């Protein structure tokens, strides 16, 4: 009881602490992007480190391991991109006409094609070239990370990564290889095929490529 009676006096700092903790909790809970301590460049570094780790893994060397290597690289790339958003933008108005199941299929096909381009144009060189980070710019919602692939023999090639904040973390949405935005390039192709033929034709071509 004595202890209880003394509690109100001792409780002053206790209440203050509780209030501070509650306020801190409120601040934490209301923070819109708690994971953004990792910046856009970190996201790009994580992607490149992940791909390079697979390329340099001693257990994954040689032609016999090519399929496994590609599978693991595809997984690393897939986790880094917001393919749903990319697919939606690449399709323009047609997206609105698709059912959820159709959107899922298109997104899956788009992701496969995009990964293929990235592998062909960039990933194949990551193991033997040095990646330097030229700079980054961001407005808080989206960002650009500029890199250069450098080799003594072939010189430099600029590779830019575009990112946006999704669910509180930076996610890649496009790659600009040697001045060419892959997302924009695919969008042009999709539009052309839909304009001159139909969405079904586009889908058939995508399925055929991915097979």
């Amino acid at each position: 009881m004595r202890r209880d009676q003394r509690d109100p006096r001792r409780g002053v700092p206790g209440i203050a602490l509780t209030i501070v903790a509650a306020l801190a909790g409120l601040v934490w809970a209301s923070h819109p992007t708690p994971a953004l301590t990792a910046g856009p460049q970190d996201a790009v570094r994580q992607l490149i480190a992940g791909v390079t780790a697979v390329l340099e893994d001693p257990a994954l060397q040689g032609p016999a391991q090519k399929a496994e290597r590609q599978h693991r690289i595809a997984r690393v790339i897939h986790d880094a991109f917001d393919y749903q958003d990319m697919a939606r933008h690449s399709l323009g108005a047609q997206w609105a006409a698709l059912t959820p199941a159709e959107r899922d299929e298109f997104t899956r096909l788009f992701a496969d094609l995009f990964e293929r381009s990235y592998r062909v144009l960039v990933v194949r060189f990551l193991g033997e070239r040095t990646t330097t980070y030229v700079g980054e710019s961001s407005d808080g919602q989206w960002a650009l990370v500029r890199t250069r692939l450098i080799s003594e023999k072939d010189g430099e090639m600029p590779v830019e990564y575009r990112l946006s904040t999704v669910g509180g973390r930076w996610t890649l949405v496009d790659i600009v290889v040697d001045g060419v935005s892959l997302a924009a390039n695919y969008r042009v192709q999709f539009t052309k095929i839909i304009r001159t033929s139909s969405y079904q034709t586009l889908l058939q071509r995508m399925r055929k490529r991915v097979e």
Partner: protein
Amino acid sequence: MPSRSTWKTRWAVLLLGGAAALAGCATHGRAAELRPVVADGASALPAPASADATARSPLDDPAEVGDYDPWEPFNERMFAFNRGLDRWVVKPAATGWRKVVPEPFREGLQNAFHNLGMPRRFVNSLLQGKLAGAGRELGGFLVNSTLGLGGLVNIAQREGWTPSNGEDTGQTLGVWGIGPGPYLVLPFMPPMTVRDGVGFAVDSLLNPVGYVAPFAANAGMKATDTVNTRAENLEVFEDVEESVLDLYSAVRNGYLQRRQKAIEE
């Protein structure tokens, strides 16, 4: 520098469908410039339904304009012709060339062709007010032409000199504010716009070989350059084809994006 042109050929070969080679490009970046520089023919379509659209995305660009291609039917026929030329002439020649000619020689040849492009890059660097770039071009040319055995060895690149941006007259006209005009594809030629076609003609006057060698010899050198470049990129071109659904529009958009970038730089 040749090294740079080696990278470039990845897109250059694609751009041309294999019939010749182009070079030139670079990048930059500020927050205000994050959007795609050149959008696509899709811009004629309305924006995605807002119901499921995210608030904003770097892939959104209200100012985007389509690839300007009013002569598309003609261009597509010419593109098909050049693709046939590549398939039946250039690619087989490149495949044979690679079997016969050792890699170091092919690389040296690529360096030498690049070195001969110095007058074009030097003059256009000056015309665009890029004095440092002009200095690098001149210095690189002198070093490569002497210590680099007539340009066969890219000494400047090995010494880590900042690579050339491949300036040409089409870029200079763009920097001076002249618009690209319609996209244009002609037989035996790389894709271009009307503005770049004019620039291409002027650039041919800056080709030193044209003044000392007869037309046939000059054409032979260009053909050799084309085949040599193609030989260096056989696998890459095939892989790129495997990731493309409509080669014509992909090439057109890639070309226009790169030109826009090069001019902005």
